[in-house]
């Protein structure tokens, strides 16, 4: 963070494109705006191509000899397999509606971060190699030859996109840059041009069941610490079970939730909630990851990692699956899991054991979002809540990209928040719900070496938070995404240091009046429950 510009300098943004045409402007790898390449051992573990030592700033990327053939064949194959890809290559009219919708363009001004141009990086090769008009008119018509420089440009810009889909909300044809970026990354992966921040979690998840590489005994240690903290705050000893056969529900959440602050407080929220309900559920160490960095690698890798969820549900003999707060995890669970690894005919249609509500919207996939589950509990008066315990918080809610734009989970978390705390303020309407701005650290970008890109791309989100901070004194940014909890924390420290980040279920855990609890004086974080006026929450 130390070598990133100060906020005042960073916010001087030049939106004027250079005079020189974009095709003639080669990529310049700027420190703080690219990620270190995947380590060979991780690629080898996953049987992925071309493991080697290299750096994006090297002149020679040590590509396979027939790299060009591999990429073009890869494109041909994907054009035939994905209608989305083919149509999005063909129908863009370059109306520019998407241009200033991308947080990376807004915060950085690099024209190649305009979604339209990000897609043109790939489209130009499509035109040059797969269309007649491109072959005839060449660069005049936006076509070009595939060269190593093009690859370098792809690597730089397809890893400066968080696949947040905001641009696709505004596109008159629904062209989805996430789809373009996914294809671009798949092609780069064929050559072994990938980033370690994505591939290491993938390799970890493949082996240990979670992105962080936490082995079963270490995982238990982490839970012990959380359970001790819960005992300290509530006087109740919560006893979750792991890999337990015959449980009714399998609970899956991102490993970041039990690994580090502030995610662990959200996880403590789940633990106290499930305890209070007496829920017959189990955690799994094998399926100990809800997130799926395969989504940032390739469709095949999504499937390879996701397969564990259903496999474990089947092995344990549960009835259905409940999923924690996470963004991209839910894109996978909602839009890919059933298609890839279903049908889940060994599970039952999810029914809340507490309220009897049938989750009809999850009857095929058999996986319910925790905010759907909890909102239903509150609606049916099954929870005793004391929202005043969250009175030290003035809360706003950040819609995480994927739950908003790949599912439409908008009201459920808001309903919960309004029931567990008394001070809730919305950010401006162009920055929430389906128009929400990304944390700028999603899709495998949330690493320190990307700090400048992240702080720039996070400006629109941070700016909206600053607005409600100044207007209403907001000091807590709630979200339902584990990546958010990690990346927004850094983002807030940079742009709006007065605001801390929380998961929704952390606030549920605080407000929840538990049977047999001692008088609560501390929040799950260990902060005093009642704060004196004006004191800043630490």
């Amino acid at each position, binding site marked *: 963070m130390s070598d990133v510009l100060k906020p005042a300098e960073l916010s001087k943004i030049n939106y004027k494109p250079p005079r020189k045409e*974009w095709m003639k402007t080669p990529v310049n790898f700027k420190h703080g705006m690219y990620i270190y390449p995947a380590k060979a051992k991780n690629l080898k573990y996953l049987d992925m191509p071309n493991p080697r030592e290299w750096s994006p700033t090297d002149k020679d990327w040590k590509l396979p000899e027939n790299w060009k053939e591999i990429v073009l064949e890869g494109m041909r194959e994907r054009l035939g397999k994905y209608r989305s890809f083919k149509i999005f290559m063909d129908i863009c009219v370059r109306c520019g509606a998407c241009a200033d919708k991308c947080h990376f363009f807004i915060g950085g001004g690099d024209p190649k971060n305009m979604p339209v141009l990000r897609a043109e990086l790939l489209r130009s090769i499509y035109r040059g190699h797969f269309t007649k008009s491109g072959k005839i008119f060449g660069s005049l018509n936006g076509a070009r030859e595939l060269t190593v420089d093009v690859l370098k440009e792809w690597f730089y810009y397809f890893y400066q996109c968080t696949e947040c889909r905001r641009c696709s909300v*505004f596109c008159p044809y629904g062209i989805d840059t996430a789809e373009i970026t996914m294809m671009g990354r798949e092609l780069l992966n064929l050559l072994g041009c990938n980033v370690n921040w994505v591939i290491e979690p993938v390799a970890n998840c493949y082996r240990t*069941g979670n992105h962080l590489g936490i082995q079963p005994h270490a995982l238990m240690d982490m839970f012990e610490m959380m359970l001790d903290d819960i005992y300290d705050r509530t006087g109740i000893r919560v006893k979750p079970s792991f890999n337990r056969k015959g449980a009714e529900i399998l609970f899956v959440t991102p490993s970041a939730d039990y690994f580090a602050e502030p995610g662990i407080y959200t996880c403590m929220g789940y633990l106290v909630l499930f305890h209070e309900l007496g829920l017959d559920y189990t955690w799994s160490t094998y399926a100990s990851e809800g997130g799926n960095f395969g989504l940032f690698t390739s469709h095949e890798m999504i499937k*390879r990692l996701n397969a564990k969820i259903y496999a474990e549900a089947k092995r344990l003999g549960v009835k259905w699956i409940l999923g924690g707060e996470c963004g991209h995890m839910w894109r996978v669970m909602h*839009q890919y899991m059933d298609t890839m690894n*279903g049908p889940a005919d060994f599970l039952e249609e999810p029914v809340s054991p507490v309220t009897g509500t049938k989750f009809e919207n999850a009857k095929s996939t058999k996986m319910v979002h925790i905010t759907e589950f909890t909102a*239903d509990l509150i609606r049916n008066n099954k929870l005793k809540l004391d929202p005043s315990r969250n009175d030290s918080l003035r809360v706003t809610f950040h819609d995480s990209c994927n739950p908003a734009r*790949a599912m*439409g989970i908008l009201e*459920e978390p808001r309903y919960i928040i309004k029931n567990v705390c008394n001070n809730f303020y919305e950010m401006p309407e162009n920055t929430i719900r389906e128009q929400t701005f990304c944390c700028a650290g999603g899709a495998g970008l949330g690493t320190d070496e990307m700090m400048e890109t992240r702080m720039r791309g996070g400006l629109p989100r941070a700016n909206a938070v600053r607005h409600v901070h100044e207007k209403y004194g907001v000091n807590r940014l709630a979200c339902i995404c584990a990546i958010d909890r990690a990346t927004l924390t850094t983002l807030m420290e940079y742009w709006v240091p007065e605001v801390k980040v929380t998961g929704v279920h952390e606030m549920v855990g605080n407000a929840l009046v538990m049977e047999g609890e001692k008088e609560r004086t501390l929040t799950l974080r260990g902060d005093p429950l009642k704060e004196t006026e004006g004191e800043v929450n630490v």
Partner: protein
Amino acid sequence: MKLLFSFITVLLLVIIAYAGIRYASLYYVFGVIIPYAAVGIFITGFVYRVLKWAGSPVPFRIPTTCGQEKSLPWIKQNKLDNPSSTLGVIGRMSLEILFFRSLLRNTKTELREGPSLAYGSDKWLWLAGLAFHWSFLIILIRHLRLFTEPVPYLITLLNNLDAFLQIGVPPLYITDVVLLASVSYLFIRRVLIPQFRYISLISDYFPLFLILGIGISGILMRYFFRVNLISVKELVMGLVSFNPQVSADIGSIFYIHIMLIATLFAYFPFSKLMHMGGVFLSPTRNLANNNRMIRHINPWNYPVKVHTYEEYEDEFRDKMKAVDIPVEKE
């Protein structure tokens, strides 16, 4: 360069048509062969492109959701921006195709001192786009009076409505004005805003010039260089009935108009103008967000290499047992 190239190409087309008629009297070429060829290319090309798209499957159901999902019964679903049924999808697509729903959301981002970002509503692109497409469609339908005998009542009605202002002789069509104004706006916007100029290609300028050329030549023909409408209708009816008759008493402006239209038709299937067909097939818009309700089938779903529970337990069995996690094999 790209702009100039496009402009000169359109100009050349005009000159070719003018010279071909004026100096070479190639009535049959410009009045029959070129229009037939253009329509032929248009139909074949359009069908080919759509079939090619349709040939690629939709492996995953990936709608972009722009409103509340269908979940618990007491939470109000946004059925148009996040449909979960076919009817909802038809509604969403209709809004998209008839009224450019997504473009209506357009905003303009402004960075102010502070820094402070503001997102102002920006409906001009939506308005110009909508005005352009609708006036183009109405003009197209109006022209059917030249293709039909007797002219159906609805076409006459549309024609009269379009001219209801009764300005000038012959009366001015509102759509003529709207078309030229909106296309000019789209053109000026592309040229003046640096980011849009930066991304623009020949294939962006060329159709704009072509359509401007078609509009201008049409207007010139109607209001200034009047052509013999009876001969025009005879020619068109001949073409429609596959019994083409050329006549020498139609002014060359007509052939310029025809030449530009023919070019547009022939160019259409090879260009971005195919968004007309593509918008119907866009998987982020034309699918219901019922992913967890109804399983979507991927026709090429193939088995992949996974790390099984057995392999996992084999590696970590001792560690699992040490912390009392149940295992399959002791």
